Structure formats: C-alpha cells, structure tokens
C-alpha cells in the first residue's frame, strides 16, 4: 500500500519529465521511454501487484499528455508488467543483467503493442520502419536509463518496504 502511495507523486512527475524534458534527448530517431523504465524497474524490485498498478496509473497519465489514442500506453505498459509477473520465480532474483534484458525486451513489446493500437485506431503505421528507426535506438537508450533507475528503485523499495527478516531462536 505504501508503494502505491509513493506512486501518486512519482508518476505525474515522470509523465511531465517525459513530455517536457526527455523529448529533446534523441539518439537517431529513438528516445527515452521514462515511464516504461520507471514502471519496469519498480516491477522488478517490488515483485507483486504493484507493477501492473503503477503501469495502469502511469499509462493513463501518459495517454492524457499524448495526442495518441487514449489507453494505448496503458495497454502497452500493463502488458509489459504482466510479462514481468510471469517471470517471477523463474529467476533466482532480479539483478542488473535481468533489468537490462527486461528494458530491451520491454521496449520491443511496449512499442509493438502501442503501434498495433495506433494502427487499429487509424494512424498510419509502417511497422518495419517504426521498429527499426525508433524502437531499436530507443531500446539502447532505455537500457542505459535502466541502470541508474534500477538502483534508484532498489534503494526506494528498501526505504518504503524493507524486506521482512525472520530470526530463528
């Protein structure tokens, strides 16, 4: 519950930064998906139901500030966190190589779902061009962003919800 309360100030700030600052930082035609990386990092360090809820709130905020179809980002982000939820227990524990892999695969899945919704809502989509021109460079940028974001999320998770320790007598 505490982690959801901290989502309320964090996610609007992330949405504003994504719209006001990060669009100016470009690599080829790619850019940072800050909301995706924040949600992914939190999903990885705070296993449980928090990730999808963060994704839902963050997606709605992103959709409000976007000219695209309402719900497109939400669906993309929730889908990615669903995939993260499916990996729970498959890895010994989350660590930075897992986070890097998740950022690259998460970018691909998120962009793919977003483009499908965009196409279905009537926006012209050239899947091959979009995935090569935008998604690939974005995946690199997102992987770079994931490293500090993952560490920050880990630190925040400990502050918000310290892991339970059982002592044997």
């Amino acid at each position: 519950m505490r982690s959801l309360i901290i989502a309320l100030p964090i996610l609007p700030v992330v949405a504003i930064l994504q719209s006001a600052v990060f669009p100016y930082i470009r690599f080829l035609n790619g850019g940072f998906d800050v909301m995706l990386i924040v949600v992914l990092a939190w999903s990885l360090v705070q296993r449980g139901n928090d990730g999808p809820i963060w994704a839902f709130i963050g997606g709605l905020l992103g959709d409000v500030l976007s000219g695209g179809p309402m719900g497109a980002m939400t669906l993309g982000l929730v889908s990615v966190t669903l995939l993260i939820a499916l990996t729970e227990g498959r890895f010994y524990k989350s660590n930075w190589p897992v986070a890097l892999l998740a950022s690259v695969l998460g970018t691909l899945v998120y962009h793919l779902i977003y483009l499908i919704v965009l196409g279905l809502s009537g926006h012209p989509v050239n899947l091959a061009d979009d995935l090569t021109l935008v998604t690939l460079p974005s995946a690199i940028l997102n992987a770079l962003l994931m490293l500090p974001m993952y560490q920050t999320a880990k630190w925040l998770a400990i502050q918000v919800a310290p892991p339970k320790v059982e002592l044997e007598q």
Partner: protein
Amino acid sequence: MRRFKLPPWLADRLGLATLLLILSIGVIVLGQRGVFNPAKSGLLAPLVPVQTFVTQIYNTVYNNLFAPSDLEELRKRNAELEQQVAQLTNENVQLREAEAQLKVVSALLDYARANPEQRYIAADVVGRDESLFLRYVLLNKGTNDGVTRDMPVVTDQGLVGVITEATANASKVLLVTDASSAVNVRLQDSRAEGVITGQESGELRLNYISVDVDMKPGDRIITSGLGGQFPAGIVVGTVASARKRTFDVFQEADVKSAIDFNRLETVLIITNFEPPQLRPLLGTATPAP
C-alpha cells in the same frame, strides 16, 4: 486425473494484470468515442502549469548552456561581471532570457503584421508527445483563450500544424511532420499542386506532383487551401531534393522546413480561420441519372 492448478501467487498476479488489461482495452474503446474527454481536461488542468514551469526551467538552462557562438564574447563578459557582482550576473541571465523571448515574439509580431487578414493568439509550447511515434506538442492556451479544434498553427517561418484537441487551458497540435499529417500544397513558382506528408523519421515528403512539372531544390512550397484545412499561402518549406522516374505518373521530393520542430518555443494560433464545411457538398455528389 490431476487438474493443473496455478500457484496462488501467480493466480493472484495474473488475475490483477488481466483485470487491468481488460480495463486498458476498455479505456481504448471508450476513448475512441470521446468518453474520457472531460476527464482528460480535468487531469490536464493541474498538469499544465507544472509542465509550463518545468519547460521554462529547461529552456533557460538550455539557452544558457547552448547559446549560439556569437554570444561567446557576451558570455565572457558575463563571467567577469559574475566575479565582480553576483547579483548583476543573475539579472543579466534573466535579461538574456527575456531578450531571446523578445526576439521570438517580435518575429511572430512581424509575421502577424505582414498577414493582417488573420487574427492570432500566441502560445507557448509546454510539452511534447509522450509517445516516440507521434509528433504532437502541447500548448498553454485552450478554450478559455478562444482556441478550438482545427485551428491552424504557424510561426514566422511557416506552418507548424493544426489543433486537434483543446481543453480549458491547453491544446494539442498535430505537427505537419507527424506520419498522419497531410497538407495540400502548391509550388509557389510553377503553381503545381501536391500533398506534403510527414514521415516516421520526422521529415516531410512532397507527393503527387506531375512528372511534367519542373521541380528543383529551393522551390518554395506554400499551402494551397484545397480541402479547406489550412488557409492558402502559408509557407510550408522548400524542396530539398526531387526524385523523378520516367515510368511514374508523379514525382516526389524531400522537403525542408525552416522550422526546427524540436526547438519550438512560441507559436501563433490562427483564430479566425474557419474550415469550410465540405461534408454537405460531398453528400450531394451523386451522378445525375
């Protein structure tokens, strides 16, 4: 026979995520029907002032860090002054920001004076699209200022785009560089008509120019007014390179806009342009028996 059963933790996660997935799809379907427009307006209202503040800070920092090289001398002098009087330096930074703003505004004013038949509202760009695949900008003027959907947006350097959504204190502009944008244009010299579309890469492409037309780099392209989306005569850009193949009916060209769409700060919204209502006319276009 044993029935397959999901572990409780996985069933819990999947249950919630599936519920949220269904909710997301519901949001998309209902969003297409405009159900969330009032809610979007309500959510945007508190976000826009914060976004304006963040954008102003970002622009100030950017302008001071990456100012053009001809300000180098001025910057050195500033540094000397900084050592002498910290307060004066601070004032100087503020004045330079105001000067930069004034340059933009005076250029827009010149444009407005040169086109007195149109009425304008100046608006600041306070945000860009959250999606990397879309090219929209968010302006700090909305319906409270008289901005409505379909109003053209320009700068002194040419066409920017069109308002697609307006809330009480903000509006969204579809840039001409977006892949869904199509603008009817004509070459100013040859009067040949074509269509400029945005590309995934953010570039502009001119299509549907007949192969008979002599099109060369540097030719100026203006809006034609056809289709009624934009007033005629607004500069869109110049031909950068033209491609003509003998077996094609049309030739195409890459177009260079004078506008740096990545650095848009202030724009003008044309408020007195009313797109003609073509729909009733289209309905009567049935062939006579």
